[in-house]
């Protein structure tokens, strides 16, 4: 899905593709995968915390969506419907994955190209001074385990909202809670994190 495409226009394009698939054009589903793979992957990643698991979940979600597509009536947008399937799959996966915490707080990550990279190096490439970069990197390094240790409800809302791929409405439908509850959970998550950071010595000026 392109960044310039509005939500309504994107939904209309998705719906047209869905109708083509329902009419028997399986190739149109490939286009739906391409348009939504990033959002699906990010939602799965927010739940399972591992790129490998998120990739598996995304694949399973797309296959399941294809199998159930004949029952899609267009009452909600295809993306919302697809993300709901993804989220259920991801939660199932999360229940069976015990290494979530270790993966989420791992200091080094592997990029898509397979290279290991460090957040400190990444931030240092920006325009800030080296000292600020290192301090910011230190803060983020400390924040990640705190985010990972948040209660699931708060963490899910915070990560989904922070991904930038989903609106609050979409997150609400995903988590099956009202939009206001999503906003409250995000705010509460921030509050908890700030309290923890304060207790660690990061005090307000």
């Amino acid at each position, binding site marked *: 899905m392109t960044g310039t495409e509005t939500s309504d226009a994107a939904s209309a394009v998705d719906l047209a593709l869905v109708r083509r698939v329902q009419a028997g054009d399986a190739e149109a589903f490939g286009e739906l995968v391409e348009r939504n793979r990033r959002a699906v992957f990010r939602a799965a990643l927010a739940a399972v915390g591992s790129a490998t698991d998120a990739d598996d979940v995304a694949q399973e979600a797309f296959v399941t969506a294809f199998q159930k597509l004949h029952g899609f009536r267009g009452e909600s947008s295809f993306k919302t419907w697809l993300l709901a399937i993804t989220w259920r799959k991801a939660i199932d996966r999360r229940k069976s994955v015990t290494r979530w915490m270790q993966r989420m707080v791992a200091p080094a990550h592997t990029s898509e190209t397979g290279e290991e990279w460090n957040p400190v190096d990444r931030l240092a490439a920006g325009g800030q001074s080296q000292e600020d970069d290192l301090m910011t990197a230190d803060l983020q390094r400390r924040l990640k385990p705190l*985010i990972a240790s948040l209660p699931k409800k708060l963490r899910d809302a915070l990560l989904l909202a922070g991904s930038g791929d989903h609106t609050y409405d979409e997150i609400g439908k995903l988590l099956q809670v009202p939009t206001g509850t999503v906003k409250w959970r995000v705010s509460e998550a921030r509050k908890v994190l700030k309290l923890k950071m304060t207790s660690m010595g990061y005090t307000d000026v």
Partner: protein
Amino acid sequence: MSKVGGRGSGIGDRALDAAIDAAVREMLDMEPAADLRGRVMDRIDGLSANSAAGSAFERKLWWIAGPVAVAATIVLAVLVPWRGATTIERPPSTGGGDTRLAVESAPRPSIVTHERPAPIHVVTIRSSTPGPQSIRAADAAGEDVNFTSVEAVQALAGPEAIAVQRLTEPSPRSLPSIEPAPLEIRALQISALPETPRERREE
């Protein structure tokens, strides 16, 4: 911008919010694998192929299993009544050849033996079912031993009719009157209690 520092350093609320946002973005800053679409489409193709193969197999299975099921139903429908008829007329399970063998192999309750050594008594058994139905001992007076003959036993006569006398109705009895007698209530005398508890105790 508020200063972001290490342990014990001052930090602004906005800076902390920004740091949280950055940390969240970084945790999710991964892209899906480039071949995701290809893998999904391969899986879908596989599903379609399996589905087609499955439906073809099912069609073939129905073509074979359908006639077999119909034939089996017809055979059962024909054989079941015949089997019921032969069950009624079937000879003893041990066969009708050698009566002695039949006696020896018959279940224990159906065997009738006599302790006297001679003459040998033959027990003839005829039964429509494996259980003992009728047993007839040869005449104790000395019938010759005949191992090959099987004597037919007449069917047992039904029990004689039992005459039951009609019940006689009991003669009506006159019951004594059960009218209640008038109650007699004796007059009660009520005396005054002592005034104080101490007086009551002393009394």
